[in-house]
């Protein structure tokens, strides 16, 4: 190896082991501060440590010239508040002492930075002494837990597709979903993702409808990364400004212009040639991702008025493959080569059937060139964001910031299916606007005020490529292809508009600092979600398709024939007060009280029939106005120099309930009916005769009725609020210790506990009382009578509903409970300039009785994997017989290592290593064991293998996964190989006993910057993602046990004489398969370039 190569390789190898890093300021906790500014606090003393009162301390922002000052009290303590984040020069002056200046004091949003002075007595020399590059101290004012990702980290760490999720995941307390690689929802400490509150610049940045970040889960970013100064993951924020969360807060802080004119442009590229085969060994097909960004900033009036304008965009094209005759014929050829003649015949038959399908679509359904709707087509995933900000230092007392963020997202031809082609795909769009103004004022020397106002809107049209009813036809006995059918994307539209006003007034009263504030959000929601709105035709075969003879037509229709629409308002009001009391120079105590009021929509119309039938009060919408949350935290600066801090806090928080819960109520105010048309032509319930050539492409003519019935049939379904519904409540507490030691080391340890109650759940008011119990299966309650008990299929409405005049009557309930405990340890060290390492380990336990986070009422009802007592009885904390178990979001172990080092030739190398244990999952029964109408939500009873009641009759269906042979022996092997079930023989399996596999990932970024002239520079970057997978295909694999492989037992029948359910055993239980196929998971490289002007 040449010396040159060795010089390069050796550091890389070392880095791969250690992983280079950038320190994360996990230490700190929340400042009493605000969500857009920070503070500097310190003590001025003489060289003998005698406090110096009446000293003047001034902090000047090194980039903008913004300055603010304070005077020390009798104990020499000063606090300078409301400082925009950045680097400051702090100068302390006092008559009779030599002034001292400290440069490079970093102010972080929401934190208080320590800056202490020891002034020498003035003698002959009165010049100012400068101290540069002070090491960041420990935040000495925060009792909670916060992790900050700095601008430097954002710029230098590898991020695949500039996805801000990559930065959020730097916190070990964040649990990313393994199959979701873009933003959206973040579980913090195992809590429901919807309980995470996302905000930008201290104002709401949520899509409150779904309980996710504005822009949703498909978009990689909806704000320009170029405009971001830092991310903060706030797990326990005791400041009374923080509310409406029970999981955590993600605060994103933007930056403004400075006194320096700057500009930068950036671009990156990735395609199939830079991407490895997926985990199944399939090479990626043609795709391209290009991203671009730019930023320009500078002063309009030096030291007074600044601007910053940035944009970020993505153009992404990915192929999607759907069925064609040629694909079948290719398979046919392959099967012949493999001597599987029968399979070849079947593929040939399918190819011919597909061609006839196309022909019939043309002749009978008026479709031009249907073949063009199948085969390979391209999906788009394009984002454009634009951000602008003005900062005006209007006077020494007033500072005004105005900013606007716009994003435009097109996700076209998404969600297609292999057998449905392009017409089954949909176009998802997202547009957001957010305008924020912030006025920071100093009314008097000790009175400060921050006023923020936000106006935001978000719209999400989601349209199927074809809005005509889906055609589903068997082209061979075992092959079903489809055409059209928007299903949930049938003129789907969501709009969320918000107006928010926040005001915080802070008054310094010596040892006390009093904060009074209010935060109010007024939201208007419009949702046109028409589940199964397009209608669905099924044809038994191609002859029936040709003769326009469907076997069925189903559709969910509104009882008045109208379009389902929910339009309502939601309001959140809060008022709060907090006292930060410096009890001693080392001990800071913070006491707060916050009062929250939440109101969800207008009261829906009463449903008198339901009140008559059930005695249940309808027509209610929650107004929760008795929420008073106390906050208490302490920090103890052990040495008085911000080098060792103990922090402790505890508080009550009220979370937010996704507005979709109100939407589910509003959209059934006029009830929905299930239209189910079957039968021969001429029968009253026969399907309507399809007439595609004459029907409008908008879906306006899609039938509302069966062929022979004048009105809409079916029984009404509703969703109601429980009259006693209240917001989730979470008690949180933490104990932390942080210390600087040695040569640049920082260590922190934090312990967290939380206990949540009143988490939202969904019940079914119309589920029958239990009818009998299966005493052979853990005394499991069954909700249909023995005479109607067919555990192999879902119980029908007439069998399982209490009153058959109604369908499902869902009720937004709130008996969800959760517990979470976590411990996180962080060590970081700066070795030298541009060489840092940070490592954290987080252990998290989280349990709940329902991991429902969003969205439909049905999803809420079916979410808890139920035991003996059924879906309406999920039990409380610790009730394993109910639905108590590990949270579906928790990862018990997370190790995150980040680092940075400088290689020869000034090449910078950064990296992120994340290793995490898998999330819990629950084995299920592939049937409806308890007759609640839902398959796959019942936890199995674990028989001893010798006792398993084995089905020996003729199996229904064509499930090829069933084991054929000695079923009990095979079942015994399943028990032996899977401790997560084998340890529970003789009982109904507790919830979520199994775990997904661990996952480890290493991402690296290599960059080289070349100075050109006059501050101009060029930078080339090479980002490497999932490097382990690049080294060996067996490493870095994203795998999971998918839903279909969680079926432990398949009920085939019921022996009423013995009371036993008879089972077969699927062969695929617990098998792990590749997660996703979205080209973001396997090893890939990304080339980028940036120019600085």
């Amino acid at each position, binding site marked *: 190896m040449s010396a040159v190569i060795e010089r390069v390789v050796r550091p890389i190898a070392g880095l791969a082991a250690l992983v280079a890093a950038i320190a994360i300021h996990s230490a700190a906790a929340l400042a009493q501060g605000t969500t857009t500014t920070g503070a500097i606090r310190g003590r001025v003393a003489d060289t003998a440590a005698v406090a110096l009162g009446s000293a003047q301390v001034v902090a000047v922002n090194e980039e903008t010239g913004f300055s603010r000052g304070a005077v020390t009290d009798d104990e020499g303590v000063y606090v300078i508040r409301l400082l925009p984040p950045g680097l400051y020069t702090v100068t302390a002056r006092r008559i009779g002492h030599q002034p001292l200046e400290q440069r490079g004091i970093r102010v972080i949003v929401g934190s208080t930075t320590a800056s202490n002075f020891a002034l020498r007595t003035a003698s002959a020399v009165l010049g100012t002494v400068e101290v540069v590059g002070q090491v960041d101290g420990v935040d000495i004012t925060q009792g909670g837990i916060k992790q900050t990702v700095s601008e430097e980290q954002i710029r230098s760490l590898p991020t695949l597709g500039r996805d801000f999720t990559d930065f959020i995941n730097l916190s070990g307390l964040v649990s990313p979903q393994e199959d979701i690689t873009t933003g959206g929802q973040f579980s913090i400490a195992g809590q429901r993702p919807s309980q995470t509150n996302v905000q930008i610049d201290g104002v709401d940045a949520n899509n409150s409808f779904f309980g996710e970040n504005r822009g949703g889960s498909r978009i990689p970013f909806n704000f320009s990364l170029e405009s971001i100064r830092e991310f903060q993951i706030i797990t326990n924020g005791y400041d009374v400004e923080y509310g409406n969360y029970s999981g955590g807060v993600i605060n994103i802080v933007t930056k403004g212009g400075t006194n320096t004119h700057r500009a930068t442009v950036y671009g990156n590229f990735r395609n199939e040639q830079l991407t490895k085969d997926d985990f199944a060994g399939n090479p990626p097909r043609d795709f391209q991702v290009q991203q671009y960004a730019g930023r320009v900033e500078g002063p309009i009036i030096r030291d007074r008025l600044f601007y910053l304008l940035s944009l970020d965009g993505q153009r992404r094209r990915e192929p999607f493959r759907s069925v064609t005759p040629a694909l079948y014929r290719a398979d046919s050829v392959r099967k012949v080569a493999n001597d599987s003649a029968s399979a070849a015949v079947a593929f040939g038959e399918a190819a011919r059937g597909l061609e006839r399908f196309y022909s019939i679509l043309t002749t009978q359904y008026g479709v031009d060139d249907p073949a063009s709707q199948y085969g390979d087509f391209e999906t788009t995933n394009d984002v454009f964001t634009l951000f602008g900000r003005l900062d005006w230092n209007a006077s020494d007392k007033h500072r005004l910031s105005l900013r606007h963020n716009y994003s435009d997202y097109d996700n076209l031809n998404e969600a297609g299916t292999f057998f449905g082609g392009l017409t089954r795909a949909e176009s998802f769009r997202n547009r957001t606007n957010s305008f924020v103004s912030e006025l920071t004022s100093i009314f008097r020397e000790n009175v400060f005020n921050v006023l923020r106002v936000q106006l935001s809107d978000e719209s999400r049209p989601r349209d199927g490529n074809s809005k005509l009813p889906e055609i589903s036809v068997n082209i061979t006995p075992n092959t079903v292809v489809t055409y059209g059918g928007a299903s949930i994307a049938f003129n789907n539209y969501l709009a969320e508009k918000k107006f928010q006003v926040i005001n915080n007034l802070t008054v310094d009263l010596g040892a006390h600092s009093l904060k009074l504030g209010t935060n109010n959000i007024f939201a208007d929601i419009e949702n046109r979600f028409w589940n199964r709105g397009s209608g669905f035709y099924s044809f038994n075969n191609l002859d029936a398709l040709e003769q326009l003879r469907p076997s069925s037509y189903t559709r969910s229709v509104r009882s008045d024939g109208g379009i389902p629409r929910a339009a309502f308002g939601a309001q959140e009001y809060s008022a709060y007060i907090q006292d930060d009391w410096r009890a001693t120079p080392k001990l800071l105590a913070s006491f707060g009280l916050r009062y929250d009021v939440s109101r969800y929509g207008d009261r829906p119309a009463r449903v008198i029939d339901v009140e008559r039938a059930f005695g249940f009060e309808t027509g209610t919408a929650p107004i929760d106005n008795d929420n008073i949350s106390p906050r208490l935290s302490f920090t103890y600066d052990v040495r008085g120099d911000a080098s060792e801090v103990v922090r402790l806090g505890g508080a009550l928080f009220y979370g937010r309930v996704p507005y979709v819960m109100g939407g589910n109520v509003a959209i059934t105010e006029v009830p929905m009916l299930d239209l189910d048309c079957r039968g021969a032509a001429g029968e009253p319930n026969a399907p309507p005769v399809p007439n595609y050539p004459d029907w409008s492409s908008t879906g306006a003519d899609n039938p509302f009725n069966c062929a022979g019935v004048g009105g809409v049939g079916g029984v009404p379904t509703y969703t109601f609020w429980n009259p006693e519904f209240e917001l989730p409540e979470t008690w949180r507490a933490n104990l932390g210790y942080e210390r600087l030691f040695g040569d640049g080391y920082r260590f922190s340890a934090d312990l967290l506990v939380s206990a949540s109650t009143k988490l939202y759940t969904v019940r079914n008011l119309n589920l029958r009382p239990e009818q009998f119990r299966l005493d052979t299966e853990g005394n499991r309650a069954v909700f249909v009578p023995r005479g109607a008990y067919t555990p192999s299929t879902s119980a029908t409405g007439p069998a399982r509903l209490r009153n058959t005049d109604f369908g499902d009557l869902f009720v937004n309930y709130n008996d969800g409970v959760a517990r979470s405990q976590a*411990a996180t340890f962080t060590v970081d060290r700066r070795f030298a300039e541009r060489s840092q390492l940070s490592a954290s380990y987080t252990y998290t336990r989280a349990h709940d009785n329902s991991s429902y986070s969003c969205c439909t009422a049905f999803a809420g009802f079916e979410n808890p994997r139920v035991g003996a007592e059924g879906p309406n009885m999920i039990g409380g904390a610790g009730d394993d017989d109910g639905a108590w178990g590990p949270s579906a979001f928790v990862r018990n172990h997370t190790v995150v290592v980040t680092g940075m080092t400088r290689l020869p030739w000034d090449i910078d190398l950064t990296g992120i290593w994340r290793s995490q244990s898998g999330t819990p999952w629950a084995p299920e029964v592939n049937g409806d064991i308890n007759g609640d109408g839902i398959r796959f939500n019942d936890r199995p009873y674990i028989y001893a293998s010798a006792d398993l009641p084995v089905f020996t009759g003729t199996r229904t269906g064509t499930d090829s996964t069933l084991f054929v042979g000695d079923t009990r022996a095979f079942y015994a092997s399943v028990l032996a190989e899977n401790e997560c079930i084998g340890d529970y023989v003789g009982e109904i399996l507790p919830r979520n006993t199994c775990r997904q596999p661990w996952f480890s990932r290493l991402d690296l970024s290599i960059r080289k910057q070349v100075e050109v002239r006059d501050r101009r520079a060029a930078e080339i970057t090479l980002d490497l993602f999932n490097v382990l997978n690049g080294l060996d295909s067996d490493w870095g694999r994203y795998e999971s046990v998918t839903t279909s492989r969680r079926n432990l037992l398949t009920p085939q029948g019921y022996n009423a004489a013995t009371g036993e359910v008879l089972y077969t055993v699927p062969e695929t239980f*617990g098998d792990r398969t590749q997660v996703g196929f979205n080209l973001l998971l396997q090893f890939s490289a990304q080339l980028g370039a940036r120019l600085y002007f």
Partner: protein
Amino acid sequence: MSNARPHPRPPLALKKIRRSVATVLAACALLAASACDDEQTPPFEVAGSGDVAGQLFFDADNNGIFSPFGGDTLLTDVEVRLLVRNDTTLIASTRTNDDGRFSFSGVSPGTHQLVVPGQAGITGSLVFCTLPGLASVYIGEQTYLAVPAKRGCVVRIAEAKNVGLNQSTTIAGIVTAAQGTYRGDNVYIQDPTGGIQIFGIPSLGLQLGDSIEVTGRMGQFREELQIVSPVVAPNVVRVTPLAPVVRTAKQITDAAALPGPKSPDVGQLVTVRRILQVGAFASGNATITDATGSIQLRLDGNVAAAIPQATFQAGKCYDITGILGYSFGILQLKPRAPSDVAEVTCPQ
């Protein structure tokens, strides 16, 4: 096969950390002790009860309600049971009083099942077509069920064609050939599954478009199935007359190839278009031929006088509508009136 484990085995170091952390966490949990007051919430309890009441009667006038002036009679001392729905579990049992009434009080809210057991021995040949019936109970309310007994429960015509000869059956349909069209004592009726002749009807003056319910025995004349000894329920409703279905000669013969007189087309109102040739008549029958094949035209009964044979001329083409009859294996199109025969331009 899988390796799903309850707790994936972490490295030893992690185990130690975990153990010590768990200890600390247990202490920390005390901090949140005040929140550990969860109580298991009971499922919805639907409190209260309601009543189920009703009346059993013979519904002579077939209107579904007890109307003594329509000839309805009360059914007294008949046992009535309320069962758990979809089950045989008895909730309560009672007998009808002298007014034919029954009632159950204090019934839990929900939908239950009402049955009259052993009804054949008590009510003779009458049947309760609405039983087992569903009774949805609302809180504090009485759910009332009028339970009419009838001579038979309506089945589809296609289903009726499969009952044995001389077996009683009840069908409902719309008149497609009125009384007096062919004979004074027969009509044809049709439902979505087919049509059939009703023979031996008293003089009721049934017209095209009358919706009727008929109970009678299944009979046969020249192999064509028909309802004989009919009793027509009195609640005749006039609706829109049915339009004929369009068939070719071949479609008619193909459809009847195996089921013969049970073909869905037999007894239905049918139009055969573009008949190219009407053969010579013999005994009121003539062969008619369209482009696909041939069947027989029959000028039946009164129609023979209404539609002279001379109506049909050689070299001309016709669209002919009529009831499709069946006579010893021969499919016969039986027009009902001159308006059923329309001369059309012959195809080139």
